[in-house]
């Protein structure tokens, strides 16, 4: 890994450290690899619109074509509602292919923190805290 990349990791972790209040009750850095941007592409199987955090479940196929179910954690329902992302919007995506950008769990489990959805038509739905917002 280059020094430039580490620099990016440092600043990006810093940005997300400052957004931790949004998560209300736990630390992102203690659970997710915040310095490693990643994406999952698959079929949205289920939405748990629940406290303290929304969860999406995504069926992702590996290179061999075998599907595995991933959990994608999001912000609290109230936070998403107030920013225009509703449960109804999300339930409408169940069964459809989506790409979710986020950060994988540190413990190696099939868990990711979701930052945005990209729909097949190119529309992007932000679902993560705004970077750099120190008191969202």
């Amino acid at each position, binding site marked *: 890994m*280059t020094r*430039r*990349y580490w*620099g*990016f990791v*440092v*600043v*990006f972790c*810093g940005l997300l*450290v400052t957004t*931790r*209040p*949004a998560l*209300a*009750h*736990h*630390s992102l*850095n*203690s*659970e997710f690899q915040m310095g490693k*941007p990643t*994406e999952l592409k698959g079929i949205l199987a289920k939405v748990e619109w*629940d*406290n*303290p*955090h929304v*969860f999406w479940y995504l069926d992702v196929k590996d290179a061999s074509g075998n599907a595995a179910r991933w*959990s994608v*954690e999001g*912000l*609290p*329902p*109230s*936070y*998403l509602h*107030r*920013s*225009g*992302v509703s449960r109804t919007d999300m339930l409408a995506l169940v069964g459809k292919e989506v790409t979710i*950008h986020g950060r994988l*769990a*540190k*413990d190696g*489990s099939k*868990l990711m923190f979701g*930052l*945005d959805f990209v729909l097949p038509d190119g*529309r*992007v*739905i*932000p*679902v*993560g*805290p*705004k*970077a750099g*917002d*120190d*008191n*969202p």
Partner: protein
Amino acid sequence: MNHRYLLGYLIAATMITGVGSTRASAQADKDQGTKKYAPPSLPKDHSKPAPRTADGHPDLSGMWIEKYGALGTDPAVGKPEGSGARSRPATYPSDELPYQAWAALKARQLRDAENTDPLLHCEPYGVPRIWGGPHPARLVQLPGELIVLYERDTAFRIIPTDGRPHNPDADPSWMGNSVAKWDGDALVIDTIDLTDKSWLGSGKNAGEGSGTFHSDALHVTERIRRPDFDHLTVEITDDDPTVFTHPWVYAWNMSLVPKEDMYEDVTCSNEKDYEHELPDKPAATDKSAAVN
């Protein structure tokens, strides 16, 4: 210009206009899409005075929020490695509190342990951590009492304002034993008997606990003012001589959001994070602890 050139010009102009309108339309769609995910703006007009109740005090009643949460897309997508990189030192939010040296060290160690936050153990926010952030609070000012309904933690307080003293037999609790009285246009809430199991939160960032423990000697004073129609000012003094060198004072403004809905906020309804929490930082040492 002959007809052939004119026709070519018209076709080209039509194509350019068409592309332009398509681009404009696409941009409008994009803007609309972006707008959909933007929080509403908050009032900034200071011209209208705060209403008053029949007894002449400012009426604090209303739905108030410090700040709406804002959504953003993944900032790493489409960016070259290292773009805009700047170093940012790691900090302990608890260092901003006037902890005694031993307490500053303990607060750092609690944060390093990562899974020590009472919220992760399905415990309440408590006073004063319950305040602030992206969750509104609804204040209902009645003769002789103030009712505060917090969206955060789906919690409430009923605070006597009729001049009665603290209940001498109150048990330690998360919300404490509160009474309030008016000091000019400020309602001053005095709270004792708080359980030492709660954390203070990092100033107004209630969700960021960061090891901000306190003792059962904590005495919280909340001064609430309504300087104009659209704003509420909340100033909190946390006085805990067992862990602090001097009282810790912080304040912030809240804006009136009369049309806002209040959502249920239950910390442990579907809690799944605890099992994934992994401490990754070395424990703070005596040398690294800040002395305030």
